[in-house]
């Protein structure tokens, strides 16, 4: 059979790295191919080449057997290829319809009536229901992703590239997405699917291609492989056995939330009368479908947002709300949900990002002057202790892979022996190896006597690390249980708001 897409020996170089090294890839009609690899293996780069966003430095691209060269995404779109990026490419202030219409050919004046009819038709065909007049920022993440898919279909895409589409989705949204993908395939589309969740790949894909350090190292039919095999193919070694959670040796309360309440920027109550106590030497997992107030909770705990009501106590001391510096001073390590937007300054160097919180203190700064030598030795220590892979401490952090970005944050936050660690979705978008590293780091903190609050919508992660689990639903705690007595089904029900 003729492949719809064939990449032959594709090579893509950046100044100092070969991101793709003679990669071959074939995609057949009505097929879903999984693209696997560690952070920085070159998956996104390869797809950006296929999408015409990057020029290729070697190799060939064939569409339906004919060779093509793409100068820009427009050429790829004209050949029926669309890419849905990890970070959505939507205009937040415009309507669904306007987002769909951007860049389309047509008359001088916008013909919204015709566009709306076409959009509604597509929505009906593929079971993707969205109000054409809704403004994008009012949509949930899952809906925004639907819009991205609609945008591609509106342009007549036959091949969809999806870069980690499930990383931001709640489990129920993932199930919906998979239904959509099955409908798409049934109607003759082909899909390239990138994910770090091996189970998802096993569920939805027909075939898997594994990249390691830019090279294609393996290809498997899903029916002829297993999760452990895929994991070791990606990492190039056997992964450690399951982590040991160990018993909790709990001590005094280190972090207490008392009746916290806050509204989100749309004026809706996001966290409502929420209280919990975190003790030394334990991991407290906060489970819940994303969008139930976890982000607002972490923003309050981090001092980014002032609670409307309630108090935060660290080691028994009442901390003024909305003051990050007070919180840092009390020894809280903060691992934010969005590494790129709130965790790091992408244009600053690795060493500068590492001293973000400590640069006001001795020995790094004295009498208002910073000491370069101290910074270098501090950064050196961080890089070594956390084995951050980088070209050096002076490299801008934006040149690091996802996993290493997270390590920079971990190093900055954990090196000073914190009393409390609040980690928000700490492994989102990380590969299996990096994920294991982060998990181990969390458990080490607990062993060292810190209290760890783990906010995650990944239930596996919650079960793996937590000693105690609380479930958030619509801004409130709907249930609490010790992990040893926890029952997955019950927690699943709590997450969907069902008690009793």
């Amino acid at each position: 059979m003729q492949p719809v897409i064939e990449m032959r020996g594709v090579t893509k170089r950046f100044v100092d790295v070969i991101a793709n090294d003679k990669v071959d890839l074939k995609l057949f009609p009505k097929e879903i191919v999984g693209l696997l690899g560690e952070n920085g293996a070159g998956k996104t780069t390869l797809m950006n080449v296929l999408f015409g966003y990057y020029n290729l430095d070697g190799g060939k691209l064939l569409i339906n057997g004919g060779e093509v060269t793409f100068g820009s995404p427009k050429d790829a779109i004209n050949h029926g290829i669309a890419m849905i990026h990890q970070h959505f490419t939507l205009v937040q202030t415009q309507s669904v319809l306007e987002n769909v219409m951007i860049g389309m050919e047509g008359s001088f004046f916008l013909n919204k009536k015709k566009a709306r009819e076409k959009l509604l038709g597509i929505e009906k065909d593929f079971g993707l229901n969205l109000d054409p007049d809704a403004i994008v920022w009012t949509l949930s993440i899952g809906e925004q992703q639907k819009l991205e898919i609609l945008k591609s279909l509106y342009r007549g895409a036959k091949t969809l590239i999806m870069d980690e589409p499930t990383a931001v989705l709640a489990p129920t949204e993932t199930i919906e997405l998979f239904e959509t993908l099955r409908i798409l395939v049934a109607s003759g589309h082909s899909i390239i699917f990138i994910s770090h969740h091996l189970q998802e790949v096993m569920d939805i894909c027909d075939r898997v291609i594994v990249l390691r350090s830019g090279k294609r190292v393996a290809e498997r039919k899903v029916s002829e492989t297993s999760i452990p095999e895929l994991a070791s193919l990606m990492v190039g070694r056997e992964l450690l056995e399951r982590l040991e959670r160990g018993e909790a040796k709990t001590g005094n309360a280190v972090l207490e939330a008392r009746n916290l309440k806050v509204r989100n920027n749309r004026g809706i109550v996001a966290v409502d009368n929420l209280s919990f106590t975190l003790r030394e030497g334990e991991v407290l997992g906060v489970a819940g479908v994303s969008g139930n107030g976890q982000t607002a909770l972490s923003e309050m705990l981090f001092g980014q947002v002032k609670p409307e009501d309630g108090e935060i106590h660290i080691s028994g001391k009442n901390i003024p709300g909305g003051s990050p510096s007070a919180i840092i001073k009390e020894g809280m390590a903060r691992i934010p949900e969005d590494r790129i937007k709130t965790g790091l300054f992408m244009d600053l160097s690795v060493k500068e990002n590492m001293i973000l919180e400590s640069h006001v203190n001795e020995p790094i700064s004295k009498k208002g002057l910073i000491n370069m030598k101290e910074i270098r030795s501090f950064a050196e220590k961080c890089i070594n202790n956390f084995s951050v892979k980088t070209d050096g401490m002076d490299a801008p952090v934006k040149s690091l892979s996802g996993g290493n970005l997270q390590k920079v944050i971990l190093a900055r936050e954990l090196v000073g022996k914190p009393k409390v660690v609040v980690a928000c979705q700490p492994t989102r978008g990380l590969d299996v190896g990096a994920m294991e590293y982060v998990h181990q780091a969390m458990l080490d903190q607990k062993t060292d006597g810190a209290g760890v609050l783990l906010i995650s919508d990944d239930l596996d992660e919650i079960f793996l690390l937590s000693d105690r689990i609380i479930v958030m639903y619509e801004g409130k705690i709907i249930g609490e249980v010790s992990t040893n007595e926890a029952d997955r089904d019950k927690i699943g029900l709590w997450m969907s708001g069902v008690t009793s």
Partner: protein
Amino acid sequence: MMSEIFSVAFITGIIAATLRMSTPIILATLGEIITERSGVLNLGIEGTMLFGAAIGFLTTLSTGSLWLGVLAAALAGIALSLIMAILSVYLGLSQHVSGLGITIFASGLAMFIYRLVVGSPTVPPIIDPFSPIAIPLLSRIPILGGSFFTQYSLTYITWLLIPAVSIFLFKTRAGLRVRTIGQNPFAADTVGVNVNLTRTLCLAAGGAFFGVAGAFLTLAHQNMFLIDVIGGRGWIAIAMTIFGNWNPVMGAVGGLIFGFLDALQLRLQTLGVDLPFHIFLMIPYLITIFALISVSRKASVPAGLLKPYRREDKGG
């Protein structure tokens, strides 16, 4: 004095003057809105207006044609904006630095060219400026007709441009592209819109507006070129862009308010109130500052403003 302020003649005089004084502000604001909607802040506006004022004046002075002057001013504005495009769009330099650089450069250049052409005579040369055109019938409407419909042709054109720019931005395909680029250039690029070319075209259009706005001051409002003829109107247009929340109609309203205050302060000066005239000159600017403080907190800045766009392809 009160009776004078409320006389019909005073009020119709103020209305006519408001429309006149607001013309260059509105024109420049429309230009800046188009540019900023595409994600580029053009601080070259003040210098570009002065350059347009000089080139327009000199062209009319040597050809005798007012409309040739207007055309030359537009072209002069486009030329400067293309320099701005090279610096801030293609080379990706800071928009603030490039814009201020253009303003300083253009102001010097305007004066230089003016001196080169006219030398330094004791009495500055003058032209025969645009005269107001009374629109038949409409200008006969009792009381207010005369002040509204006896204006310069450039003022009428400006009034037509307000809905035109609105329609362009919100109802056309090209306008959607412009707005998208200003909000999320990456989104535009991934659907095949040429970001840098579109920004350049928007800068050029804005530049033409600035040039003509400047020329209005030397070809209609006055009949000679003076180095301080713009008097900060470019900066006011930047303020009105924010005041109007990047919306042409609201920006024009801002321009009108400023024009009104400007007209009012001139009248008050002539009424012989016993205060230094500098105080009157300050009024419109002061009120603008306060208006900005109250409005700009709610302003929705185009998300892509100030950010040069480049594909992250450093590859070889």
